[in-house]
């Protein structure tokens, strides 16, 4: 599939007047069939998988590659993708497994649980600061963005001091209106900055992720200093963007459902299930996961040829009526644990438990601190970030 003038439509990003729902075309296409052709950024065609079951199949299939340098890989940007060292989201086995397993200990459930008290403290510190600010306050700038940033910096063992650099670069990396070169520089900028901390941990190891990698992986020759910095950069970037987006969009969603918000605030036992429903309903990674087939593979009744690209829009999977009853309704009491907000298959989000706990702490704490919390502008005036890999708000003015 090297035709350069495909007539197939592109994956839509614009949401019109329904900012919390995936673009309407995705539901239409899902109803028409499980897989169809779309045009990707460089003008070539790729397959768009439209349904939950087939998306799970593709993401669980070892014949599907995440290697962006393979011919046919459907990149979200038009230019040739540049690979940055340590970016394990773009690796295939066996190297992928080796690199991922150097991080699984850090993010395992019980280690994140050990961090919970610190996460509560960091949340309360930000709420204390917010309480003293003149209203309206931009919740995105003063709570949703800094909290995940503080948490991931603490996990890695790096200072919060330079979070402005992280925030600016993280937003640039996902910005699809920026060229691959600009995004690449932003990513390597963070990695180059982090090298000094890898060196520092080598001199004075502490009880944090970078020290663990330095002592157990770098000194043994398994990972290089630059690879560790690249892996850390990836975690900083993703740790910033996705949870920040989820906090802001969750606040909007809960405020639009006051009865469910009341239960969320007064019945702590509904919180974990409600977070799963928010993850399902909002599914913020809205450009689709991307793969290229390394063999001919049958998907949804068509043969995807070796070298053809696939786009897997997980936000659409999470609104598939065959997987969730009345999927467009937000319902914190439904069973939504099988959502694909964190992906599926061997690349499923390594920091998913950390993200869950962040949301389980941040959202109830925010509504307990400000029981009258409300948007300080009508929803139509909120600016939503549609042109980024991670869907989000640009700002969120609130008052109480």
């Amino acid at each position, binding site marked *: 599939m090297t035709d350069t003038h495909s007539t197939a439509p592109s994956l839509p990003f614009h949401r019109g007047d329904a900012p919390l729902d995936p673009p309407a075309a995705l539901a239409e296409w899902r109803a028409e069939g499980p897989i169809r052709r779309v045009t990707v950024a460089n003008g070539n065609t790729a397959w768009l998988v439209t349904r939950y079951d087939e998306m799970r199949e593709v993401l669980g299939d070892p014949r599907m590659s995440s290697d962006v340098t393979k011919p046919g890989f459907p990149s979200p940007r038009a230019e040739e993708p540049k690979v940055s060292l340590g970016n394990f989201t773009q690796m295939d086995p066996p190297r992928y*497994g080796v690199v991922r397993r150097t991080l699984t200990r850090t993010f395992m459930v019980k280690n994140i649980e050990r961090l919970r008290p610190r996460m509560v403290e960091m949340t309360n510190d930000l709420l204390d600061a917010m309480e003293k600010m003149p209203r309206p306050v931009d919740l995105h700038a003063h709570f949703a963005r800094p909290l995940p940033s503080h948490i991931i910096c603490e996990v890695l063992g790096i200072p919060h001091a330079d979070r402005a650099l992280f925030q600016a670069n993280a937003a640039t990396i996902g910005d699809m209106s920026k060229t691959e070169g600009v995004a690449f520089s932003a990513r390597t900028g963070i990695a180059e900055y982090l090298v000094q901390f890898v060196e520092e941990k080598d001199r004075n190891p502490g009880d944090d992720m970078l020290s663990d990698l330095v002592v157990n992986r770098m000194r043994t020759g398994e990972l290089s200093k630059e690879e560790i910095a690249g892996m850390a950069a990836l975690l900083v970037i993703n740790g910033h963007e996705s949870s920040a987006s989820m906090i802001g969009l969750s606040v909007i969603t809960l405020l639009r459902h006051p009865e469910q918000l009341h239960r969320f605030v007064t019945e702590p036992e509904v919180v974990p299930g409600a977070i799963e429903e928010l993850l399902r309903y909002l599914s913020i990674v809205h450009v689709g996961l991307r793969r290229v087939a390394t063999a001919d593979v049958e998907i949804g009744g068509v043969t995807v040829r070796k070298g053809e690209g696939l786009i897997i829009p997980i936000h659409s999977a999470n609104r598939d009526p065959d997987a969730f009853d009345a999927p467009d309704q937000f319902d914190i009491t439904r069973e939504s644990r099988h959502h694909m907000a964190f992906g599926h298959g061997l690349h499923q989000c390594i920091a998913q438990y950390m993200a869950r706990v962040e949301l389980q702490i941040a959202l109830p704490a925010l509504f307990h601190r400000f029981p009258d919390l409300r948007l300080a502008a009508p929803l139509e005036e909120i600016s939503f970030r549609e042109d980024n890999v991670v869907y989000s708000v640009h700002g969120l003015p609130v008052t109480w």
Partner: protein
Amino acid sequence: MKIEIDEEKCCGAGQCVMAAPEVFDQREEDGLVLVLDAAPPQSQYEAVRQAAKLCPTAVIRVAEDD
């Protein structure tokens, strides 16, 4: 019910621990799956089935009772 594990495929996502914490844990040294009870009591069956379904790399095989 009997639980079998294909540890080679484990990616340490932690889904099994979240779904069935009395049956699954993660090893302290590398965060990979650790089966606490390979023949769990009936009260755990639903949670174990959920864990098997959620596992992103299909590591957990559940042999149901006849």
